[in-house]
């Protein structure tokens, strides 16, 4: 157990807030078990911006905007905003795309995986095992010398453009020009009131910026230093708080069958999350963490975010994402291709000692 200091307290506070808001946002209108899901929100937002034509998945999710702008504001307020980047930009863009492909096969990002699990959805167990295996594989790669390279301080304020993009999304939400689409059917219609969604996103953005909270980071630290890591405790806090919130709000339904947004292609749920875990470790954080880092001025994470947006368009536009009937054929091909790309990357980016 780490020393119970201010940092550990704020990590647990962040994790608990994430767990409670993740459950409550579903209660206030977001899709079932999807109070917070970075990949779903990215797919929704990509659709709203016209990057795919699935008319059931088009909505500019205010939570997503809140994550980035909350982190941006917090980084500015605490003088931590620094434009940095320049490490393997194309690889990072591709990594963002792969993250969404992996999440698409499972139906959800690592945060949603825990939300599904704590709502009693036992099908999410395959994803959990996959994510743990992916993080482990990523750690083995790091241990073997795989590194995308360090980012450096960047001139020209390159770090402001991703927060600016999300600010533009906020403007588009209000002005709603004709090229922005808001679904009138499907899961994108299900959303909590705008003010609540944005406020939840901003609060979580600030807290996550202060604590560096990350789902795969928590797992990685648990592998490396066990429960001495504050992030591992944070992960535990997230699990426990969302479990209690689900039970208290009557959203807990233990079972394999009839779970919202789930399927029985366990192998592909597993492999999808292996991809997410592995990529996340190589690029230094889960999809949520990438948004927060992008808000802090990290243009490497910004490239991942842009890749995720492109991935959101691709996964829906090419029907790669899983549904309750399972993972489509080309979704399986995409997951395997993604894993092949990660293996090739791990070979090519390996620092070999003579």
């Amino acid at each position, binding site marked *: 157990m780490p020393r119970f200091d201010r940092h550990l307290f704020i990590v647990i506070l962040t994790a608990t807030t994430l767990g409670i808001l993740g459950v409550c946002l579903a209660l206030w209108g977001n899709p079932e078990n999807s109070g917070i899901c970075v990949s779903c929100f990215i797919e929704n937002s990509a659709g709203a911006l016209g990057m795919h034509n699935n008319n059931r998945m088009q909505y500019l999710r205010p939570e997503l905007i809140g994550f980035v702008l909350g982190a941006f504001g917090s980084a500015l307020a605490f003088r931590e905003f620094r434009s940095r980047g320049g490490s393997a930009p194309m690889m990072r863009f591709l990594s963002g795309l792969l993250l969404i492909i992996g999440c698409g096969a499972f139906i959800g990002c690592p945060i949603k995986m825990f939300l599904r699990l704590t709502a009693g959805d036992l099908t999410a167990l395959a994803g959990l095992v996959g994510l743990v295996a992916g993080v482990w594989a990523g750690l083995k790669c790091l241990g073997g010398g795989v590194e995308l390279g360090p980012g450096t301080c960047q001139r020209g304020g390159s770090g402001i453009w991703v927060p600016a993009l999300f600010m533009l999304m906020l403007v588009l939400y209000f002005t709603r020009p004709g090229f922005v689409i808001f679904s009138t059917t*499907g899961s994108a219609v299900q959303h909590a009131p705008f003010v609540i969604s944005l406020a939840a996103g901003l609060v979580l953005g600030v807290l996550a910026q202060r604590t560096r909270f990350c789902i795969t980071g928590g797992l990685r630290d648990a592998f490396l230093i066990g429960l001495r890591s504050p992030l591992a405790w944070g992960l535990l806090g997230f699990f426990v708080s969302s479990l209690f919130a689900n039970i208290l709000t009557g959203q807990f339904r233990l079972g394999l069958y009839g779970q*919202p*947004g789930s399927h029985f292609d366990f192998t592909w749920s597993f492999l999808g999350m292996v991809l997410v875990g592995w990529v996340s470790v190589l690029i230094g954080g889960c999809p949520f963490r990438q948004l927060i880092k992008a808000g802090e001025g990290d243009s490497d994470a910004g490239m991942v975010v842009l890749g995720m947006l492109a991935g959101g368009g691709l996964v829906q536009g090419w029907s790669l994402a899983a549904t309750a009937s399972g993972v489509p054929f080309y979704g399986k091909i995409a997951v395997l291709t993604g894993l092949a790309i990660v293996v090739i990357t791990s070979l090519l980016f390996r620092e070999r000692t003579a």
Partner: protein
Amino acid sequence: MKFDRYDSILLSSLVVIAITLVALLFFGSQQGEASRNPETDRTLAQAMAREVRTTFLRQVYAPVEDLVKEQRYQQALLKLQELERKYPGEAHGHMIKARVLRYSGATEEALESFVQGIRLNADYIEKSNPLSERKEIAALVEEGLPVFIEKNRANPDNPTLKRALTNLRYLQSRLAGGCE
């Protein structure tokens, strides 16, 4: 940091561009230039397409619905076959066929047809859809699930029963919602 003439020119340009932008947004929207153009307004286009589709389907399938109301199920199924040849891949026919099969007592086949329809177009499970079959599906799942669980327990090797249970589970999951 020292500002020179070059900086002043750039900053002035920025101010001019910003003022022009704000003015364009303000006056453009007043003069209707920024108003919604039906050709580029995709939300409007989607809404219109949905309305047209609903009206079209109601018209095309009206004779079948009449036959269903008169409980002439065989004729309804024949008419549906004819329409399926004309509009292959249209989910609406599957949904009506599922209802007819259910009323005829062919529950396994009704389930199969509902699943085919929902896979083609998940809008039929939405409460807000004017063509929604949610109530029908929910009723079928509620009454069918305990029956088919029991039947599968008694006949674990029967592939038809296994298939029916899988279909019920699929519909149950779709009814539960989620983001997909």
